[in-house]
């Protein structure tokens, strides 16, 4: 079955809310999961349904910081919880430093960072993100002002743990980012998969045009995950809505 972008945003939001996440986090989850899924980067497929609860605790720990760098320990939390904060921190540092690097360590679902990076790239900065998971190494890079990234993956299956570290690089100087990307990406002989920004934009627009393909079972499971936030109905509660 196909669902609309609007439906997926609403359903993921309710499911994360149902799992006990805070409002800013379930808002982020809805946007990040839907964006990645529409881009063909596997957002909805990446998360567990029903979503896991807020494992990392309320507060991310700022382990290290100077003018151009920072390390945040997410404490095992979802990217949907602290990913946008890490991206915003990189953006803020990139405004005052020539190039800024922020690492978000010990976080789940690192691939969902793409939506966070898109938001700051749209403000005119050049952004890259790198992470490793059980499939291998992944990278995305955004031109300044771009909505969609260039994505690459180097297949290197490992027994990665439940959490990963994401490295975000942000700069207003495209030459610096180009250097960073080439150094990260140069792996002669590696099994490399690439998808360009126009290809990803094409996937996104196709999902917008025709709907997002999901299985009925997954969709029902996602919607069922909202039950904890719904209030049982009664004759009395029906009166609290309108005509009876």
């Amino acid at each position, binding site marked *: 079955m196909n669902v609309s972008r609007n439906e997926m945003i609403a359903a993921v939001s309710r499911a994360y809310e149902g799992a006990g996440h805070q409002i800013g986090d379930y808002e982020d989850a809805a946007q990040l999961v839907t964006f990645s899924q529409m881009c063909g980067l596997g957002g909805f497929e990446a998360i567990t349904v029903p979503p896991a609860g807020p494992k990392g605790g309320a507060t991310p720990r700022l382990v290290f910081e100077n003018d151009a760098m920072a390390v945040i320990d997410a404490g095992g939390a979802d990217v949907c919880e602290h990913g946008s904060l890490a991206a915003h921190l990189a953006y*803020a540092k990139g405004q005052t430093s020539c190039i800024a690097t922020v690492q978000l360590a010990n976080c789940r679902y690192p691939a969902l960072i793409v939506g966070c990076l898109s938001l700051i790239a749209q403000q005119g900065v050049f952004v890259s993100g790198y992470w490793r998971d059980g499939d291998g190494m992944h990278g995305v890079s955004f031109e300044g002002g771009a909505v969609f990234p260039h994505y690459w993956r180097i297949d290197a299956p490992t027994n990665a743990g439940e959490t990963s570290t994401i490295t975000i690089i942000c700069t207003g100087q495209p030459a610096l980012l180009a250097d960073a990307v080439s150094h990260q990406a140069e792996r002669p002989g590696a099994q490399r998969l690439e998808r360009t920004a126009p290809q990803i934009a094409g996937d996104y627009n196709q999902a917008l045009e*025709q709907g997002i393909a999901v299985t009925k079972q997954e969709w029902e499971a996602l919607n069922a995950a909202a039950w904890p*936030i719904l209030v049982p109905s009664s004759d009395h*509660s*029906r009166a609290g*809505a*309108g005509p009876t």
Partner: protein
Amino acid sequence: MGGQKMLSAIAERMRPEEEVMDLTRLGSLHSSTLSFMRTLVRHIMKEEWTIERRVFNLDDGGHGTAIYQIATPNDTFSFVLFSEQLADEDRNDRVIATRWDLTMALCEGIVDDIWLEDLRRNVPRQEAGRVDARVFSLSRANRSSRLFSYVLDELCAGRQPDVERIAEVGYLYRTTAVYGSGKLGMADWNKVCTKFPDFARPYAPEMFICYLLRQFSLDQIDHIAKSRAPDSAVALDDRLKRFFGIGNSTGLGMAPYLVNHGELFSQWVEMRETALAQVLHKATPTAWRINLFHDLVKRATKHFAQTRTSDEEQIERNRVLVAELAEVGTWVSNRNDKLTTWFDLSDHAKKTWSLETQELIHAICMEIHPELVNDLEDNCTLVPKPSVDPAMTTARLRQLIEQRYDWALEIDFSDPSSSDAFWYRSEEKLEPRLGFVGADPGVEKQMPLPIGRRVRDCYDALVEDLAAHPKSDVIHFLLRRPSQKSIVRRIQTMSKHKYAEIRANLADRNVRPMDLLRCKLAFFGVSKFDPRSKLWVRNTMYQGAPLIDDIGKTYDSWFLPLKPEMKEAGA
């Protein structure tokens, strides 16, 4: 007219946020020339859309399938309707209903037989069915038990129905929900607004499906009358047809929208206020315009005298409005050539008359200056961009809250009367409902609609944080207090807009959801507000609007629709 350029030029003369965004005032708005239905009909008439009854397979009882094909200068669309027999006891206006007299879909392109069968399997089921991204809008409607049989009997007997009886209700069918924007598998709004210019304005597909529903209701009753009494039946008179609107029954489900889509709502308000500022400050009240104004005051007096409601408060509001309109006419007449701007009238109204009257005066002023107003209809769409400004200092954020959310900081949330109402989602179709602490279960599952209370929490956290970190910025505040991420994002985003938030405490024991409903419905362009409680309202859409057979011809204004003169139309 360059929209954004004009917006900035007039900005200083626009009404202040604290005045405009007061919920009681918003709940007194009237439909205007910028309302979405008015805009849509202007486009239909100006561009001469072709609307044809391609399929009209109804039995003698009016049950069956109809397809109307629509050709615009840009695209072709199909309106597909299923009419089923429904027992009186099964007729229910609530979202939780499962069967309706009519169900319908507005579709992209031409619907072929295979697609039609798919629609037939799903559209009548509404929320229980699924459609695909070729469908823009889905709706359903129930017959007016008060009026339908009477009108049908009269037509069958060869008589036109009594206009007084029609005026008591105003419609043959009442729609109980209209869906769009990606619900139930439909086309996402981002697709509609980028690919289909005919519907690239807020709620345009939803407004159009209601326009065609009204047309079907008129076509259907003629069909049934002719089938039932082929020898005696007469067709409904066109003047009466135009006086029929489509009923609408709106409950709480509409209220959260205005809060959850704050940026978009702000844009609607800014568009309307820009139009108003243009008229109040830049238009000259010439003798001709003043005559138009007087004509519309008289029309308004009749319109509200003809409005029927059983709600005591609305009856009183209408009574005061009609009484004050007489004073308005006299005041303008007495000013004669001393009236140099319409602002003089608006300023006097603010000091003298009720909010209903003030806002009706504004709607009339906009109505008589379409040259300053109507182009703004293209400015009411916006792509929301909620964003955090991470480098803003926390001192500046505190200042921003104090400046833009002073209304929220004035509320004492420790007083139970300020915080014991809550909004929640029911297990029944996720229907939004209003509960009260101590009387209803579910407070722990409430929706985060009371923005004022969340701002207050954020402000308190910010003040505490500033004491420990006086030179900090927003991103570091959020790293220390990640639970504030959502409300900080909202405060920073909405503060970029001239009209940021609805200034009301939605957790207050005496909260009036009706004001939210009325406000949104005024932007839609409905008339004849008939509150049935403080939680739901009946109203009429498209009353007085041209029919599809009027397209390509001249047509009269349908602002403040009146009963037609029908002396010669009797049998």
